[in-house]
């Protein structure tokens, strides 16, 4: 009887990306020669989804661009925890200007590189949901409309985290934040139920070459999307969902699990689009009811307890259902 040789590997630093995969299929993170664009020593919280997402994205971009990138970063958690005076954990050319202008600063950098004939240098802009969906939307739209050669990455942890967890236009309904507190009428506690504000769809409406959503739960997918974006020119946008243990009130060891649940409930759809049309979506293999996702986060704790808030949980479920149907995420 033929036997199959089973390889056992010592787990440790390099388990990320699955070393059982063929070399060519491994993630950038699995390589020893990954650039660590966001190096260790930064001051992010334990379990920070944004730190993870940024490292994933920047390393993938570095590989795609043969290390020739410049990054413009908005004010926010990422900027603050990565550059505590007098240190920096960035191993890439990096600049921080203001809260709302990352996209415009990137436009300027790209123009300078073009003028100087440095065609190999690729420009990225990055910011949180605050700096992207709210205060930075004007500059972002301008960059999109001009089709400037910039890849903008938004790390969405669904609130203004660095200033103490205040509500942004990316904050999901019912979520508790410092400015959408759980007080008074229960039916109104936490963030309001509104229409939401999908910057990926806004980006799509600008008809730019590439738009995608990604999650820290799916490293391969995230890296593939960044790599694909880096292979294109013009305005590109990637929106990455990044749980925040502090702001969401979740266990720091649950970050990836929660990110995966967000995808599997349908609350965070994964898709790609080009020139205004959705071109690909990641179907949900195993649909999960929203409670499983919400229960792990104290920011939704008021929906549960002795008397669960069934109507509002149902409204959240309806949002998930609508996403699944709208984006065609059913298997």
């Amino acid at each position, binding site marked *: 009887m033929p036997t199959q040789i089973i390889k056992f590997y010592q787990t440790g630093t390099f388990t990320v990306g699955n070393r059982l995969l063929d070399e060519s299929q491994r993630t950038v993170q699995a390589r020893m020669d990954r650039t660590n664009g966001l190096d260790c020593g930064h001051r992010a919280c334990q379990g920070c989804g944004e730190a993870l997402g940024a490292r994933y994205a920047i390393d993938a971009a570095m590989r795609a661009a043969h290390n020739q990138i410049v990054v*413009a970063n908005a004010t926010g958690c990422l900027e603050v925890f990565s550059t505590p005076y007098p240190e920096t954990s960035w191993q890439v*050319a990096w*600049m921080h200007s*203001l809260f*709302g202008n990352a996209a415009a600063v990137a436009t300027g950098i790209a123009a*300078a590189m073009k*003028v*100087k004939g440095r065609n190999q240098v690729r420009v990225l802009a990055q910011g949180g949901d605050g700096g992207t969906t709210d205060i930075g939307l004007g500059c972002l739209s*301008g960059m999109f409309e001009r089709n400037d050669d910039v890849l903008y990455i938004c790390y969405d942890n669904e609130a203004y985290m660095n200033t103490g967890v205040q509500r942004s236009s990316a904050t999901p309904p019912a979520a508790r934040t410092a400015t959408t507190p759980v007080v008074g009428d229960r039916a109104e506690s936490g963030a309001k139920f509104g229409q939401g504000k999908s910057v990926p769809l806004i980006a799509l409406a600008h008809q730019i070459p590439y738009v995608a959503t990604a999650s820290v739960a799916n490293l391969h997918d995230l890296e593939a999307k960044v790599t694909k974006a880096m292979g294109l020119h013009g305005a590109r946008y990637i929106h990455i969902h990044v749980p925040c243990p502090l702001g969401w009130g979740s266990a720091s060891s649950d970050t990836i699990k929660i990110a995966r649940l967000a995808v599997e409930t349908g609350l965070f759809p994964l898709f790609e689009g080009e020139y205004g049309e959705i071109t690909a979506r990641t179907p949900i293999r195993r649909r999960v009811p929203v409670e499983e996702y919400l229960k792990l986060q104290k920011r939704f704790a008021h929906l549960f307890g002795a008397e669960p808030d069934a109507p509002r949980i149902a409204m959240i479920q309806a949002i998930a259902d609508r996403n699944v149907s709208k984006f065609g995420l059913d298997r």
Partner: protein
Amino acid sequence: MLRQIEGSRAVAETVARCRPEVICAYPITPQTHIVEGLSEIVKAGHLKPCEFINVESEFAALSVAIGASAAGARTYTATASQGLLFMAEAVYNASGLGLPIVMTIGNRAIGAPINIWNDHSDSMSMRDAGWIQLFAENNQEAADLHIQAFRLAEELSCPVMVCIDGFILTHAYERVDLPTQEQVDAYLPRFEPRQALDPDQVMSIGAMVGPEAFTEVRYLSHHKQLRALERIPVLSEEFREQFGRASGGLLRRYRTEDADTIVVALGSVNGTIQEVVDDLREEGVKIGSVCLGTFRPFPLAAVREALRNAGRVIVLEKSLAVGIGGIVATDVRMALDGVSARIYTVIAGLGGRAITKASLRKMIGQAQQDQLEPVTFLDLNVGIIQRHLERESKLRRSGPAAENILRDIGLVAARIG
């Protein structure tokens, strides 16, 4: 080359000869002709390599400039009034980061009430942001100052604002000697940045600085401006040697040697003041004027030196420190600390009101009779003020002040002066 040309056009053509690599601008009256001129020049291929970017707001304009300058490109933009305020955060950011951006301000009043005409309130609002501020007396200087500005900015790694009176200069046709490319190249070398975003020489720009070092960083920007006080006259002198005409510098004195009364002002009103000085001198009055070419850094020593022997100093300014009086006058008083002279603040020309020889003569006459208040508003219509205050005291819902006053004075377009 001598041209009869609109001020804005002269600025555009001169800026183009400074070889900016990135130009980004958002239109606002009265700067529009400058950016239109530059877009034409770039599009026609007369300036290359240059990226001309149409941005979606003034905040974006200066932000794009910040990115481009940080990446080592010579960068230019222009704005005025509301636009300067809209980019205020970026104004402080640019100087804090030490980026040598040159920006033209087409001086215009700030609303409310909305007003498109000239005064200096916009530049004054940013006077403490760390930018060097130069003021042009006429369109020749408006053009020339940009050449000096790029040189100064890049030498010191400090952004520079070139301020030119909106409409009065921007939209005026005047004789201007436009420099040749060779002349500019001989004066303005290639931009060699102190810092540049470069994947081959990785660095982080824009870190957070806490109490341990913030004061030192701020002191260094103060120090930069003090160095500018020395460099500005030197660069102006070099300009004179290279281009054959006096331009720029800290200040210019007109008939002040034996003057009892000296009028101090910024910008184009100096031309009118000099006419009045000449007329009065012919009548035997010992009067002179000082044209302040540099407002930031404020040339305390040079101003003191120019004014110390006058018994009477009249600071005529197109700006108002609401609740105090003068902005320029406050700085002049600081320069004259310890010197005994009567200092008068005359607020004039706000929102584009014409400053006439007749009004100036009258005001100076009053000063000479010691009948001028320490702070006055030139040509203030006291009747309107009184009527409005009465209106307000009688009725709570008295309506918007500006609209009430406009109704009082009738159609604006029917007036000449």
